[in-house]
């Protein structure tokens, strides 16, 4: 059997090289330059649209900057009373047209570019999440990960357009200042004198609103909390007939919310009031100096018009701060996305355990370390083909970690796990998942309908197989109670924790392989139902090797052998009846022998309540 995996290894190496080349071409893998920022990667991915946005934006800005000068000349020519300056009017029209067309191009190019990059980032991020060990992705909470896959990618993908827009946005005020300086120095000085208060004001504005919104958000959170609690306790609310009382309780903080809401508007109004005064006063100042220069004959009417337009452009710092703000948001989003994009992928060598193998599972010196603590240490176990091994131990003994390592949901930090002699770390993921089935205490179900949820996996079983699996998992009776039986949409299926568990079991049964790992998968079933499932399991998969994380004595007693874990190490392995003589072994089940009918056993709850 030893020659077989080595041959696979060679082929696997070739495939690995090919995969690396593919990744290099498609830019699909984690890029080596992640530290240089996402912006560079995005620009490399789609360089031309970003360049187009930059060129069009800069062109539009230049047209906008040339317009006041042309306008000034046109006005002077018009007022001079000579021939109508059609060519100058045409120039003004051409400049306006250019600016508008280029602006439209920026909107189109930029929007499309961001949309495409968003899609690319999303697919890459999800691929990264799906390719890595689940526990690494679990470092992000589901809500956080959802945000990163959706809103964060949208913001991050905007970076190239935001960067290009920032460059263009800077052109306008700088160009405006240059334009006014070139036209008349004195008016430029008047403008410069007015700018410091403007900057001061912007700072006051940002400070004020943040203080006011904090209170508002607190009141808002109170409403949300009360509503979530009431929705969570709907069964009680319905039974007690207190729905209207609850509605009143949930909406009671609205009065406070109203007070804080009004305060935010007043603060906002204050800031807007200041800026709405400052700009007209600044314009008046520029015009006054310009008017005096006009009276002195140093400036023409047209030049005054140009000066006032340039002044407006020069004080348009708001556009720059806005562009800078969105660039900063994009970069922050990119930084948040980084850890998702750089999740290390599971490696493999394309191997497969020998066909028709019986399913012998071996753990050789397996250790798992988390934050300096040994969750598992030097675990050596062999589960003979077709037999069942129960894993027992107090909470925190490492049972679930062992279950995860045994089917490569987790790579051990030391040692290795073999199925029929082949290292799991070498096995091709698709082969691995079709050979090893899992069922969990709190399964997540996927698919539009109940039948789809059971069929979910590497291969799609036919409806008959789905029903058989549901039957074996004692799920068939309750599924037939659902509004549309197996075709009931998952979101319309009222299910208890125990019922979800049985669908999870059915999913595992519907995809038989060599090894089945049950991690607390029957904790939500009453003892009678659990026994039925166990019997079906013994019948159903005579050829399957089973690893069962157990909390109940009865489950352990039914297994061929029991592995007793303590502090991450195997304390003893043997038949339940032999271990049972040890009082310390019996103590493992103390307080856990009570049938749990729903959800996950709440051992902590019980001990706490008992105090």
């Amino acid at each position, binding site marked *: 059997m030893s020659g077989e995996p080595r041959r696979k290894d060679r082929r696997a190496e070739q495939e690995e090289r090919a995969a690396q080349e593919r990744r290099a071409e498609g830019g699909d893998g984690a890029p080596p330059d992640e530290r240089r920022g996402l912006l560079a990667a995005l620009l490399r991915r789609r360089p031309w649209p970003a360049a187009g946005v930059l060129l069009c934006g800069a062109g539009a800005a230049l047209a906008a900057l040339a317009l006041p000068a042309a306008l000034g000349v046109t006005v002077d020519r018009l007022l001079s009373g000579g021939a109508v300056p059609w060519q100058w009017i045409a120039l003004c029209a051409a400049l306006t047209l250019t600016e508008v067309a280029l602006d*439209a191009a920026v909107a189109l190019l930029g929007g499309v570019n961001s949309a495409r990059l968003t899609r690319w980032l999303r697919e890459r991020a999800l691929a990264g999440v799906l390719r890595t060990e689940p526990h690494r992705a679990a470092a992000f909470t589901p809500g956080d990960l959802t945000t990163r896959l959706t809103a964060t990618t949208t913001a991050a993908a905007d970076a190239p357009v935001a960067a290009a827009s920032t460059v263009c946005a800077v052109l306008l005020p700088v160009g405006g200042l240059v334009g006014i300086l070139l036209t008349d120095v004195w008016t430029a000085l008047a403008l410069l004198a007015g700018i410091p208060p403007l900057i001061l004001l912007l700072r006051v504005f940002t400070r004020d609103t943040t203080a006011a919104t904090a209170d508002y958000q607190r009141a808002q959170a109170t409403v949300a909390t009360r509503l979530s609690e009431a929705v969570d*306790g709907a069964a009680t609310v*319905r039974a*007690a007939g207190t729905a209207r009382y609850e509605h009143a309780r949930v909406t009671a903080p609205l009065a406070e919310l109203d007070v804080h*809401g009004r305060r935010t508007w007043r603060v906002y109004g204050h800031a807007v009031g200041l800026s*709405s005064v400052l700009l007209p006063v600044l314009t008046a100042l520029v*015009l006054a100096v310009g008017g005096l220069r006009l009276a002195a004959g140093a400036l023409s009417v047209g030049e005054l018009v140009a000066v006032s337009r340039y002044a407006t452009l020069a004080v348009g710092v708001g556009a720059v701060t806005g562009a800078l703000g969105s660039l900063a948001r994009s970069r922050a989003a990119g930084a948040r996305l980084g850890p998702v994009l750089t999740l290390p992928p599971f490696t493999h060598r394309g191997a497969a355990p020998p066909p028709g193998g019986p399913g012998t599972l071996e753990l050789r010196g397996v250790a798992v370390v988390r934050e300096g603590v040994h969750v598992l240490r030097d675990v050596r176990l062999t589960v003979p083909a077709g037999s069942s091994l129960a894993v027992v131990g107090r909470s925190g003994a490492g049972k679930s970690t062992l279950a995860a390592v045994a089917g490569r949901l987790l790579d051990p930090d030391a040692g290795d796990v073999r199925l029929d002699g082949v290292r799991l770390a070498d096995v091709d993921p698709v082969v691995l998942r079709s050979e090893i089935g899992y069922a969990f205490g709190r399964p997540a179900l996927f698919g539009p309908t109940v039948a789809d949820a059971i069929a979910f996996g590497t291969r799609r079983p036919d409806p008959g197989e789905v029903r058989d699996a549901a039957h074996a998992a004692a799920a068939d009776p309750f599924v037939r109670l659902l*509004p549309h039986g197996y075709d009931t949409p998952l979101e319309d299926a009222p299910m208890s924790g125990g019922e979800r568990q049985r669908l*999870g079991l059915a999913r595992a049964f519907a995809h038989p392989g060599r090894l089945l790992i049950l991690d607390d998968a029957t904790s939500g079933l009453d003892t009678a139902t659990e026994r039925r499932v166990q019997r079906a399991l013994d019948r159903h998969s005579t050829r399957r090797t089973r690893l069962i994380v157990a909390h109940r004595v009865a489950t352990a007693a039914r297994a061929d052998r029991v592995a007793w874990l303590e502090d991450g190490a195997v304390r003893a392995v043997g038949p339940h009846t032999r271990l049972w003589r040890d009082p310390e072994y019996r103590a493992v089940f103390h307080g856990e*022998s009570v049938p749990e009918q729903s959800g996950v056993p709440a051992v902590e709850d019980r001990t706490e309540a008992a105090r």
Partner: protein
Amino acid sequence: MTADTVTETTASGGGTLRPGSRRGAFGRVWREGRPFLWRRRGAVARLGAWSLVEFTQTFLTGFGVAQALDRGFLAGRPGVGLAWLALAAVAALPAAVTSRALFSRLADLVEPLRDGLVRRASAGALHEALTRPERAHTGAVSRTSHQSEIARDGWAGLVMALRSCVFAGAGALVGLAVLAPPLLLVVLPPLVAGWVLFAATLAPMAARQHAYLEADERLAAYAGALAGGLRDVAATGGGERLAGEYTALTRAQCDAARALARWSAVRVLALALCGRVPPLALLAATPWLLGTGMTPGALVGALTYLTVSLAPAVQALMTALGTAGGRLLVVLDRFTGRVPELPPARAASADAGADPAEPGATSADAGATSVAAVPRRPGAGVRAEGAPGHAPCGVELTGVSFAYGPGARPVLDGLDLTVRPGEHLAVLGPSGTGKSTLATLLAGDLSPGGGLVRWRPGEAGAGARPGPPAGTVLLPQHPYVFTGPLRDNLRYLRPSAPDAELARALAVLGLEPLLRRLGGLDSLVEPARLSMGERQLLVAARALVTPSPLLVMDEATSHVDPVAEHRVETALAAHAGTLVVVAHRPSSARRADRVLLLDGPRVECGPPSLLARTSSLYRELTGAPPPAV
């Protein structure tokens, strides 16, 4: 959209948040928005009045410049010119003060909208949770509150942009008319054309916006489900398939975003027609206008109006309408439609000592004629007599069936059961045999699909009634404890319960250490800081201070340890009139007067000692492994 209508509308069924087709969205929103605005016409008028300041200021920007040039700088009188400019600058000063008042009036229009939306959203969420528990997710709750904020910001932005455009626009147009009436002939045509083009883009734009938001939400929902189940995805090897579906969603989202980008390019053109073409038209018409007597100052003033006042105001409004407006419409449309009416409060439990009169007894008599008298077991009433003030109530089920949907096998099928007044019944059976359904039917919380449920208060021979008696209590498995004072939590079922009784209940259930830890009856309870067991005990204490003729516990002590469970059941059995316990542990069955065994078509009922001898299912359910119990 209003707070007032929430409780007034007499409607039921249908959730409030529907995906909503975009067609007719505006009509639906407008139908409900119009009365909202009409009721707030005073606020609208005041907002307009304060906006007159903006009108004056805009008027003086152009007019001041024109006069400053014509009468001052160009006429060789710089002092006069400076005076006019000073006037224009001074006209801007009041805005510093008035904009605060303006935003306060804005709050009069915006805050009530948010209040109404939050009220609707919470009524909808509660209604959904009550009628379709399987669909109630707290995630939907937070999404709803998020949307009311989007509506608040969008509506405020729209009101301000509209107001500014109207008053600044009016100031500029009046100014143009004053400077030289023919100016309007030149300026208005492109302005109108721009608005027509914009209006034409509005509907398709809103549709694209709608499609975009929907694609976004579908994607977020999918990503959420995925992110919550990565371990299972990895373990089943179904990642490829999910990635494929996810890719299809991102692709749809990308297409929607691109369609939106195309339309925003069209909007840039409409904007240009309104903001950029009028100055060009003015230049082209200047030779003619100068001929009609327009002064150089008026030309500069007109250019100021067009570039400084009109163009930015129009741009702000078009942007608000095109982006925030579309989003606002989509969000508001989800809140339209009839608000579900929440069920009215049940008749409150009679306080201890009060006469438990049964208002429905007479009308129920007619329907009860065929019901045989319930044989009353001696001794069953003894405990009930010990609990003063609320006569125990029995329940009769005749041929009761219940199914969860048209295609579903009934979970209960033709069940006959008599719960005697004052007895303690335990319900036992494997998962999914209808124990919870039975509990809900007994408490009158659910109506049977077939058969009859009747309640028979007090002595044998008393009339049966079609509704549960006042003060019937159902304790579900999930304990509802809310963030609020401990006292309010304990008095949830009986708001008038005196403190002494609360303290006694806590003492009986061994909750004094918890009371000390929290710091008294006034202290704030936060459910997240309590274990499930502690929450179940608090809920049990709640039942212990409420006189109840019929108490149904649906695995309500599942997270409590066996010793505490014994304490709870004993206390409640002594307290309540009739007690039905859906048992979580075999020991609960052993404490009962009678046990009902449910196992699909097989139903057995009898005292525990009898069933232990006769029923193999009973032995399997109770005698099974646990040596510790």
